[in-house]
């Protein structure tokens, strides 16, 4: 089942025909099916984050369209987009994006609060996700009292709380150590396997990308190549590194 379709996405910053114009994306097209687990990789400045922002509706493309679950999101206005995002999409950010004044539990339920769900429903959902990601112990702590890995697991729980069909993750392991990264990527695997959601992550961390089923490489605003995972994670990791070497990006794994 088709989940997301990007049709010839172009993004130009600055005046269109002006001298200072920078083309961040030069016509990117790809498709994502339900249950996919895909990473977008590329060197710094290749347009990864721009692409993710456009796909998730945080930014508007200069031309081209994004269709998620049958909705053309570039045609939605600000308010509709906000509602669409919190109902259909989940977000995980590099800097976790948790509210300091809220406890872990409260942070997780914020999207449900906005949806005006009942308290019992919230409680149930929080405990479900907390046990899945092993953060039950810290539910009443504040973000500054817990580790980065725990913060990111909180953010992952928050992203999933409204049962979204599609999860976007922007460098989810960017601020984490290797151990925490492993935990987070295992979480993503769980999301796909146990909750049958679709996950799209943007990363330049080879280790993180190796957990995915498919990696799309972009360079200079265009899709360069893509590889599918067939064998073990280790093999896939080596494959990704080979590809990056061709691309000219970072290849070191810690």
């Amino acid at each position, binding site marked *: 089942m088709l989940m997301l379709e990007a049709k010839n996405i172009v993004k130009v910053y600055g005046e269109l025909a002006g001298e200072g114009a920078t083309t961040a994306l030069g016509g990117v097209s790809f498709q994502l099916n339900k249950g996919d687990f895909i990473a977008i990789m590329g060197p710094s400045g290749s347009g990864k984050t721009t692409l993710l922002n456009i796909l998730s509706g*945080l930014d508007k493309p200069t031309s081209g369209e994004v269709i998620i679950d049958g909705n053309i999101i570039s045609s939605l206005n*600000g*308010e509709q987009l*906000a*509602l*669409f*995002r*919190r*109902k259909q*999409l989940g*977000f995980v*950010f590099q800097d976790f*994006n*948790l*509210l*300091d*004044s*809220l406890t872990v539990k*409260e942070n997780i*339920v*914020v*999207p*449900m*609060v*906005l949806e*005006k769900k*009942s*308290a*019992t429903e*919230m*409680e149930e959902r929080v405990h479900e996700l907390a046990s899945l990601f092993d953060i039950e112990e810290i539910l009443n702590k*504040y*973000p*500054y009292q817990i580790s980065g890995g725990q913060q990111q697991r909180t953010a992952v729980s*928050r*992203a999933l709380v409204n049962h979204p069909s599609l999860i976007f993750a922007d460098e989810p392991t960017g601020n984490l150590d290797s151990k925490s990264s492993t935990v987070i990527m295992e979480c993503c695997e769980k999301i796909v396997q146990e909750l049958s959601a679709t996950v799209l992550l943007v990363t330049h961390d080879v280790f993180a990308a190796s957990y995915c089923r498919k990696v799309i490489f972009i360079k200079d605003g265009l899709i360069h190549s893509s590889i599918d995972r067939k064998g073990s994670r280790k093999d896939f990791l080596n494959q990704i590194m080979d590809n990056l070497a061709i691309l000219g990006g970072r290849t070191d794994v810690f």
Partner: protein
Amino acid sequence: MSFKQMIWKMAKAEYNKYLFYFLCNSFAVMFFFMFATVYFNESVVQVKQSESIQYVLTIPGVALVVFTIFFIHYAHHIFIKKRKSEFSLLMTLGMSNRDISKLLLLENAVIGLFSLIAGLLAGMIFSRLFFSLLMNQVGIEGVSFQIIGSMFLSATAAFLLVFLIVVGKSLFLILTRDPIESMKSEQIRETLTMKSPLFGGIGVAILIGSIIGLYFTYGNPVIGGDYLIFWAIATFLGLYISLLQFTSFIIELAKRSKQFYYQHILFWTNLDTKLKQLTSIFMLVTVMIMVTILYSTIILFSYMSAEKEAIAQNPFDIAFVEVDILDTSLLVQKENQLQEHISIPFYSYSQKDTYYDWTNTYTFISVDNFNKLTSRKLSLENGEFLSFINVDPEHADGYEKNILFPIESERRNFELKDTIFDKRINDVPNLGEMIIVNGNDYASLKERSDGEEATLHLVNVENWKESGPFVKKIEERLKTGADDQDVVQIASKIEDYERQRNSNGILFYVSTFLSVLFFFGSFILLYLHLFSSVEREKEKYSKLRLIGITALEMKRIMTKEIATIFFIPTTIGTTLALLYVVAMAKDIGGITKHPDILLYFFIVAGVYYVIQIGFYLFAKRKMLSEMIR
């Protein structure tokens, strides 16, 4: 790059922070100075010795000190919070404690000095401006504007004292705290360590107790005013404790009802995080609103009651005594013509006091004339007399009811029949008490003793407020015929009215000044609070926007928060002002006797609410546009 150059560069890049801090401090100095211009004004000082103005200045004095300490502390807190992470970074890069202290002291010394100068200048300009504005509008005599050394001295000393303490405190904190901790300080919540409903209960008890205490002591003519400062401090203390405890108590309570708590989770957690800061703001704004409304009510009451009092004390527009036969041409007027003219002849007799070295003057009037004056139908036998006392029966306490006939040689011929209390004539000198006898006795008294006959004229005109020149004219005429020692016996509404206004003048000036000062103070405080947190709020909402909050929802939450900080203090402040008005009204006989005070209170409170709503809408718009930008 040298140390100094680096500091200068950093300061230039972020001049906004410094400007904000500078403005806050200047404002505090200005506030101190403007209060000092009133407090040390010589005409006020003179009145202060004798009259109630001392007490009037008590509550605002206490409130002002609390306000300014907090204000400087708050401004400094915001400033240091912004600088702290920068300092910590510099410290981790190897800057020594000595350098940091040098930097901090240098910055604060420069800002403090400039604030002092700017504040004093602004204070001088504004108090002068305000003074002339008030003088022109209200026309108060007896107060003159002045600026003397003690005003500068006290404002400077007060500011420097608070400023040094505050700077010293943060210097201590920065030097003793772990730099890493300081870097994280933005995130850490201020939690309340002593949270208990019991404390809250004690706070409320102190608050209620202070108002009850004020109610029962303020009426006491001897010591009532002296206790005011005590009760005011108790009220403020009780208010602070109960506000602090009850906000946390209400949050706890809200947490118990999960559905309710989650529905407004952003509101509650925001309240919880800023609890201490918010409580202080609530407390101060409440106090300022209370003081403003209380004093505005007092002003309005004394201003309005000048007229009432004049009417109550003077049943006739003009009353005067003419010893010779009246020149009737005196009373002919082209404008503001006479409406009513009653002439009552009376006989006055003076005799030396038996014990003291002074002369008592007694006034005798025939019963027929008394009936004419008071619309009564009394009759007296020979040898009977009535004692008439020209006061309202309500105030009859303290008057001798069983007097003997005043002329000693006639004492055995006369017997007291009754004592009449009635307010029938103006307070003309020597006519406060009269002896009423029948026509025969009146005639024979006149023959037997060597007093003199005179006529009391009671006059009403078309418009008493315009009768000033007329009264002057009569007074001049009466003076021409009299000796220097003789009292000119005249009493009029207009003169009474003007006298009242003038004696209230200084009180009026001081109270209006304070009300306006506190009015702006509370606004600035609310505004400061709102916009000091704007960066944090922006960050919070940008995070929320990423997870899909709509602009409308954001506006709704913001509106709720702004409304809370605007209207909770207004409501509490108004309530406290009402209670204080009721308690302080005991001084003039209680609220039941002067229900119009309540009317004035509601007018003042109503006006305040309207302005507050206007300001709330303004601040809300400004804040929302700031957030959306």
